[in-house]
């Protein structure tokens, strides 16, 4: 359907809802690359006005990617909860923004309408929200998940400990794990991106983390970020799998290019649940997303990259994940050019994910060919902390020596805990105290002395040994 907007004596025309959404999107390089960006600043502003007038109901009748061509569209349409939607079904996109910001939309009310909100509705309203609106509403959306600890409680911020090593050297990985634990990181997950991506290697790394978690009785979970089909094989081989990982996108074509479909994820979830390794909860999935993946796979169907991103959250939502991580600045400047675009995208992804009921975290990150630096990351980290982000990454000194990009450091996590008073997962906070890693875990005060259990491990090292 065609959308028209009269402004003075000029009529602006948008040929479809997809085009209207794209033109209304705040500027970013990926939409320019795709050729869907607004052709002028004025067109963008007018598109936002036109989008604000679209009834939310319209998104249930005008699919942005054809229903018959795309299983993500079918998932969104078939599993839409009309009863939950009834509270907001009379609203336009513009009214929806007002309603979300209003005092009527309490955390309880927002949780009640979640299942009635489609990704496209969330994407649409985010396009007419300022950064502070995205923060304000996200803070009201509480999403709590659990496996061996409880993540996402209000006032809490967890970290994924990311101990990557360019050759998967076990002592190198163990060294980064130790560094992270001693800086109080790792309650969301200890998660390794393997350098060598095969089943045998994944099993070795799973065993490594399982042994560390068991020996030091750490209330956390592990994950090797390998392909979902590899993880299924690991489970069949008897490996200690806590969480199943997969990168997901917002169209069937994107997911095909990643080598899986929705049925694959269902199979993997079932396999992981059968292991019954969770102690306080059963959220066993860990998903990663990021704006630009659909365009990169040439499977964006003419949509803007942010709308594609939010559609991926429909896939995530089906599998009750423990963690959903938008890896916001990893993809490079052809999708998000600079710090301003990365910050905006991070806030959009976090808001849209939370609104849909997902346990959103963010890899606050950038590559060296993006126009961004540590100061931009400090800004986004602080804004996400205020918005109530469930988790961030923690890596030694911000430098991922395997993936060659920069993300938040162990130190950064303690910074945000101190300035905002954010707490680690309660079970993990107790462990930090018990192990004497922190002398005051509530205030993120580290102990002055090396904790006894870890001092013993370090003593067992041969003195001043050579290279391994």
């Amino acid at each position, binding site marked *: 359907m065609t959308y028209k907007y009269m402004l003075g004596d000029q009529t602006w025309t948008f040929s479809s809802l997809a085009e209207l959404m794209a033109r209304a999107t705040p500027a970013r*390089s990926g939409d320019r690359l795709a050729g869907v960006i607004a052709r002028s600043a004025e067109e963008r502003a007018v598109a936002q006005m036109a989008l604000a007038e679209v009834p939310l109901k319209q998104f249930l009748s005008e699919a942005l990617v054809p229903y018959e061509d795309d299983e993500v569209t079918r998932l969104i349409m078939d599993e839409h909860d009309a009863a939950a939607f009834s509270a907001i079904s009379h609203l336009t996109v513009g009214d929806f923004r007002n309603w979300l910001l209003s005092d009527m939309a309490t955390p309880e009310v927002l949780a009640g309408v979640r299942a009635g909100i489609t990704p496209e509705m969330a994407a649409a309203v985010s396009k007419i929200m300022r950064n502070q609106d995205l923060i304000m509403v996200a803070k009201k959306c509480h999403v709590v998940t659990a496996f061996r600890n409880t993540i996402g409680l209000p006032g809490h911020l967890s970290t994924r400990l990311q*101990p990557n090593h360019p050759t998967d050297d076990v002592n190198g990985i163990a060294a980064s794990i130790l*560094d992270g634990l001693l800086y109080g990181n790792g309650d969301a997950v200890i998660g390794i991106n393997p350098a060598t991506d095969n089943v045998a290697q994944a099993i070795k790394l799973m065993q490594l983390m399982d*042994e560390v978690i068991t020996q030091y009785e750490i209330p956390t979970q592990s994950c090797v970020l390998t392909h979902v089909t590899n993880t299924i094989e690991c489970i069949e081989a008897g490996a200690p799998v806590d969480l199943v990982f997969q990168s997901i996108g917002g169209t069937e074509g994107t997911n095909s290019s990643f080598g899986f479909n929705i049925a694959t994820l269902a199979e993997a979830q079932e396999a992981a649940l059968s292991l019954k390794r969770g102690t306080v909860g059963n959220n066993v999935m860990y998903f990663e997303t990021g704006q630009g993946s659909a365009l990169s796979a040439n499977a964006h169907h003419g949509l803007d990259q942010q709308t594609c991103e939010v559609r991926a959250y429909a896939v995530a939502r089906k599998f009750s994940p423990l963690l959903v991580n938008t890896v916001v600045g990893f993809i*490079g*400047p052809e999708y998000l050019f600079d710090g301003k675009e990365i910050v905006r995208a991070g806030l959009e992804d976090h808001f849209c994910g939370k609104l849909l009921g997902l346990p959103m975290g963010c890899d606050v990150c950038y590559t060296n060919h993006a126009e961004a630096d540590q100061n931009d990351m400090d800004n986004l980290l602080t804004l996400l902390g205020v918005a109530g982000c469930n988790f961030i990454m923690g890596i030694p000194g911000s430098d*991922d020596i395997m993936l060659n990009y920069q993300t938040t450091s162990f*130190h950064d996590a303690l910074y945000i805990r101190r300035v905002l008073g954010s707490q680690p997962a309660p079970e993990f906070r107790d462990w930090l105290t018990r192990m004497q890693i922190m002398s005051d875990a509530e205030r993120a005060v580290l102990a002055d002395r090396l904790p006894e259990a870890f001092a013993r491990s370090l003593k*067992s090292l041969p003195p001043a040994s050579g290279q*391994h």
Partner: protein
Amino acid sequence: MSNEQNSVVENPWRRLREFTDARIGLGRAGVSLPTKELLEFQLAHARARDAVHLPLDLDATSAALAGLKLEWAAAPICLHSRAEDRMTYLQRPDLGRRINDASRELLKAQHGQLAAEYDLAIVVADGLSSCAVTENLVPFLQALNEKLSTDSASDWRIAPITLVTQGRVAVGDEVGELLNARCVMLLVGERPGLSSPDSLGLYLTWNPSVGLTDASRNCISNIRPAGLSYSEAARRAFYLLSEAKRLKLSGVNLKDRTQDDVVETIASSKNFLIS
């Protein structure tokens, strides 16, 4: 001064750096980075940024290539992609994958005077790190030439080397096609990491033509003194070249078996944290 020193808490586990290049054991001022570590990070980032933005010095690179005293490296042909400048290059990967009209004309004109067919065209692109090219191109080519020139199995007719400014990986296929080469080897500055601003990448395509994807290419990554050594990179490149020539293909159907003897020598997860 002593007060300042006391405000930094050092980490006794810093010695674990013998196991990893990760920035572990940095110590802390409160919970923040000590000044020394902060400034070292800034320097590493500055170097990575410079690697992306400093233009490749074509004159110096040409002179260094001439120093190899090889017929095909004596007079590099300088080309330019369709991305006019670095800002365009960074945002428009499609433009970096094609050479501009002037470069096409130049190649066509040159080709008229050159031999009918080559076994190999070597194409160099600045990519995302000019210093990767400046520092690693010549020593790598020297190591590779030792392999090619002593190959008893076949003679290698090598096209004049080309240098592409603002070029991405796929640009090699267009250049190779215009040079009428049966195989193209593209050498490109890779996306710089904080600890590795100078990684050179190598991509090999049999029967190059415009429009091929990564599925048609073989890749060797991280060629630099602190990464994959020149001699090892040359050994693997020569293996791939010989196999491509023998099988008349490249990409996913051409398996690199040069590492089969070294992978997975350690299957144990045993490490110092586990007693």
